[in-house]
Each structure stands twice: as structure tokens, then as C-alpha cells.
């Protein structure tokens, strides 16, 4: 009996342990599932953005969508519409919607020169007006390698043409490098001759300059003598001139005060004399001696030089 009782307790222990194990496994499984959900983003809030393009080239489902280089979502669906256009739906974090403005542009570009294609959302200038969930944005494709190669080719081709022309000209025996080198050789020879002549002439000039300097030296000696004489006499002359100027200033100062009244007096006297003379002219017996005013009407003379009636000669 006691053995049965011992077995029952062991079984009960086993059952309890088994239940605990199963519960722990279930708990771990649930945690793993929750982690997978979180990792897959099934529990996060998302927003949808769409754009329409003419071609789905380089656009795939699950392709990364970035803002300023940070991944914020992925391409959800790529569908061909009945009108032939391709509609692409993006699913991005709802939290990232604060960076997406209404005038934002979605650009398809390569990560590096040969990296995978990603969609980059480039916010617009007007940061105050944000795009709503489900908004349709503009789409553009960045220049790919082909476009860059084409652009490079367009720029290089004219340069290559120019190089061809330049090398052709340089190779020309008449006008090109050989001819130029010949001319340079000739010019160098002429320059040598010129330098020789110049040296000779400079020698002549040097001799003439030496003579001129000699004469100038003699002149300077003479000038020095003259200046000494002037130096001796000038102070006396300046003293005299100063005296004369002071005298003139004195006279002018006196004249300033005396001349204007004199002039005024003179004018008044002249006026008085005129009046006296005018009166005297009209008074007897002086008026008989004074010439009477001439008549205002002049004697007519229609032919003062007697040319109008010259007889025809």
C-alpha cells in the first residue's frame, strides 16, 4: 500500500513538471510569434502613398522607400492600369509622414554607381502642407548610367572633333608646327642680329651720354654760382617787396574808406553841375551862346553815296 501511495506522488510530480514545461514552451512560442510580428511590421501603423509612371522598369514589390537615406517603407503593389500606365503603391511608416509634403517628389535612383534601385521621397519646399494618407505624389527617374553615358558622349564628341582639327593643323607642313618652328628659328636669328646692333648703338649712346653728363655738370656748377648770387640778393629784394606790399595795403585800406564817399560826392557834384549847366543854357544871355539842340528829324538822302543814279558805263 505504501508503495502505491509513493508511485501516485511521483506521477503527480511528473504531471506537474510536464504541465510546467508545456506552458513554458507555449509562452516561448507566443513570444517568438509576437517578435516575428513586430519584426515584420505587422503591428506598426503605416500610411499609403501612390504614384503613376509610364514604365515599371527598375520598380519592384518590396523595393525600399527612403527619406534622406533612411528606409521608411517599401513598395507594396505595382499594377498595370487599363490605360497602360503603371500605378505603384508605397507603404511607409505613419510616423514618417511628417516629412512628406504635398509637393514632394518620388525619385527612382541607384544606390551608388551600380547599386540597387531605391525610391527616394524628396520633400517639397512648402513644409507647412503635409501629404495625407493615400496621397498621389509626382514621380521622376534620376539619370541612370545610360543617360550619364549619353550625356558624356555628347560632350566628348565635339572635343574629339576639335582635337582632330588641331592635330591636323599642327601636322600641316605650311601652317603647322614645322612651319612655326622654322619661323621661330628665323626670328631668333633676327633677334640675335638686332641685339648685336642694339649693343653697338647702346655703346654709342653711352659715349654721347657721358659727354652730355659732362656738360650738365658744368651747367650745374654755373647754376650753383647763380643760385648763390640769388641767395645773397633775394632776402634784400624780398624785404623791399614786403615793404612795398605793406605800403600798398596801407594805401588800399585808406582808399577803401575814402574813395567811395569821394565817388559819391563826385557823382552828386556832377549831377549838380549838370543841373546848373542845363539851367544856365536856358537862361539869357547864355542861351544865345549855346548851340541849339539839333532837330530830331534828319535831312533825307535816299542816295547817300550817289550810286543809284550812276550812268550806265
Amino acid at each position, binding site marked *: 500500500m505504501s508503495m502505491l501511495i509513493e508511485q501516485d506522488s511521483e506521477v503527480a510530480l511528473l504531471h506537474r513538471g510536464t504541465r510546467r514545461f508545456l506552458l513554458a514552451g507555449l509562452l516561448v512560442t507566443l513570444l517568438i510569434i509576437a517578435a516575428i510580428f513586430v519584426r515584420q511590421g505587422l503591428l506598426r501603423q503605416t500610411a499609403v502613398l501612390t504614384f503613376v509612371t509610364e514604365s515599371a522598369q527598375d520598380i519592384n514589390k518590396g523595393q525600399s522607400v527612403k527619406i534622406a537615406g533612411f528606409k521608411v517603407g517599401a513598395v507594396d503593389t505595382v499594377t498595370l492600369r487599363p490605360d497602360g500606365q503603371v500605378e505603384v503603391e508605397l507603404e511607409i511608416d505613419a510616423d514618417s509622414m511628417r516629412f512628406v509634403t504635398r509637393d514632394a517628389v518620388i525619385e527612382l535612383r541607384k544606390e551608388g554607381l551600380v547599386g540597387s534601385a531605391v525610391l527616394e521621397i524628396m520633400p517639397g519646399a512648402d513644409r507647412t502642407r503635409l501629404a495625407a494618407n493615400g496621397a498621389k505624389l509626382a514621380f521622376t527617374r534620376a539619370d541612370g548610367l545610360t543617360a550619364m553615358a549619353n550625356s558624356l558622349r555628347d560632350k566628348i564628341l565635339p572635343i574629339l572633333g576639335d582635337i582632330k582639327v588641331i592635330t591636323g593643323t599642327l601636322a600641316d607642313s605650311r601652317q603647322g608646327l614645322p612651319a612655326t618652328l622654322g619661323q621661330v628659328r628665323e626670328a631668333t636669328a633676327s633677334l640675335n642680329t638686332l641685339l648685336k646692333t642694339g649693343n653697338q648703338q647702346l655703346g654709342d649712346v653711352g659715349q654721347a651720354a657721358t659727354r652730355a653728363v659732362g656738360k650738365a655738370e658744368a651747367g650745374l656748377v654755373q647754376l650753383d654760382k647763380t643760385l648763390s648770387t640769388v641767395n645773397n640778393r633775394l632776402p634784400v629784394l624780398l624785404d623791399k617787396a614786403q615793404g612795398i606790399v605793406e605800403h600798398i595795403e596801407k594805401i588800399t585800406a585808406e582808399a577803401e574808406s575814402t574813395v567811395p564817399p569821394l565817388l559819391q560826392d563826385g557823382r552828386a557834384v556832377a549831377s549838380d553841375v549838370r543841373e546848373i549847366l542845363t539851367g544856365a543854357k536856358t537862361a539869357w544871355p547864355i542861351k544865345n551862346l549855346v548851340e541849339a*539842340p539839333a532837330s530830331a528829324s534828319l535831312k*533825307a538822302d*535816299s542816295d547817300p553815296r550817289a550810286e543809284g543814279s550812276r550812268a550806265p558805263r
Partner: protein
Amino acid sequence: MHRAEPWRYAALLVVPLLAACGASPKPLPEPRPRVQAQELESSAARRYAQGDYSAAARHFAEAARLRSSFDDAAAASRNRLQQAQAELALGQTQRALDHASQVTEASLQVQALLLQVQALLTLERGDAAQARLARLTALCEARCAERGRVQLLQARAAWAQGNVAQTARQAEAALPLLREQSEEREVANAWRLLAAARLVQGDGAAALQAAQAALFIDRQLAVPEKIARDWLLIGDIQRRVASSEARMAYQRALAVAQAAGLKELVQLAELSLKETSQ
């Protein structure tokens, strides 16, 4: 001692008082610019009469300027006309024409037109002269004081056009009218023109008589240039009538021109003398 009556003292006082009351009040003195202008005009007229036309023109111009300064337009216009007359005498014909044309005073229109026609005839602008002469004739009716001068200008215009008969007719008609106005210079001008016309007409005797009449007046007026011209004209007439006398006339013309320093007339007289000696 005899003592004077009181009424005599009263009479002695009253007589000077009455005389003072009866005397004409002293006229107010003329303003100085007006007096100056009058003196300038008088001086200019005196110089013109003396033959100093250059000074006369200057003084008339200054008088005109002064009168314009105190807005005496009529007197300024009169002075401007006098200036033009002096300039005509100086031989500055274009200036004279300009100054005479500036005068717009109605009362001086006849005088202005007379000078303009005279200047235009001297400048040999016949058409313009005829046009203004027509206006002048219309302005100067039969009773016009300047009728004699107008007729003389008409004679000169006809002479300029080569109408000798008309020249003689107008000059003859002008003579009595000019004599009435005591315009001796113009009378001499008319005689000279008539002499020239008669010479062309071939009436040597009448031409000589007219030229001598002109010379007589010009001698009285003592105008050397005109006297020399008269002698040249007499010489020309004598060459047609009696060539022996012509040389003497040209010599007189030469003597007068040389004495007066009239180079152009000296050359003319010398040329005429050379022609008569050939």
C-alpha cells in the same frame, strides 16, 4: 522932412507879390534817363548833319536803347529809324534794312518803308523793293508829306529795271515836291538821276543841265563823294556832247576823290581819263 504915405509902402509890398503870382511855375525837372536820351539824340543829329555818320549811328543806337529801357516805344522806334538812316549813309545797307524792318510803329511806317525800299534798291533786290514800294505808295496818298521822296524812289526803281522813260518822268515829277519840302539832298539826287536818264535818252544838253544842277547843290552841301560822282557823270555826258570837255570833268572828279580819300572813285576817274586819252 517929407514923410512917405502908408499906402505907398503897401503898394511896394503888393507889386512883387502880384508879380510872383503871375510868373509861370518852374517846370518839374525831367528824369535823368530821358534827359540823357534827348542829349544823345540831339548829339547824334548834329553829327549826322556834320557827316560823321559812324558816331551818329552809335549815338542813335544808344538813344534807342535808353528809350527802350524806360518803355518809350515810339521814341525808341524813331531813334532806330535814325540809326538805320545813318547806317545807310555809312554803306551798312543790310544792317540798315534790318533796323528799319524792326520798326512797327504805325506813325513811322512811311519813314520805315522809305528806308527799306532805299536799302533794297541798294542791295539790288528789285522784287522786294517793288513790293514795299507798292505798300508805300498805298500808304502815301496825294497829300502825303513824303510824296516827293516816294516818287524819287519810284524813279530809282524804274532806273533799276532799265525803264529810262519812266525814270525821267518820275524824277521830274519828284523835283518840285522835294523843293517844297526843302530837301536839298534829295533834290540833288533827283537831278542826278534825271541827268543819267536824259543821257541814256540821248538828250545831252538836258542831261548836262541836270548834272550841273546836282553839282551845284552838292557843292553847297559839301559832300565830296557826290561831287566826285557829279563830275564823273558830267564827264560821261561831255564825252557824248563835246569830248574835249570830258577830260577836264574827269580830272576834277579825280582831284575831289583824291582829296577826300575815295579810292574807288579815284580808280573810276583814272579809268575814265585813260579811256578819253585813247
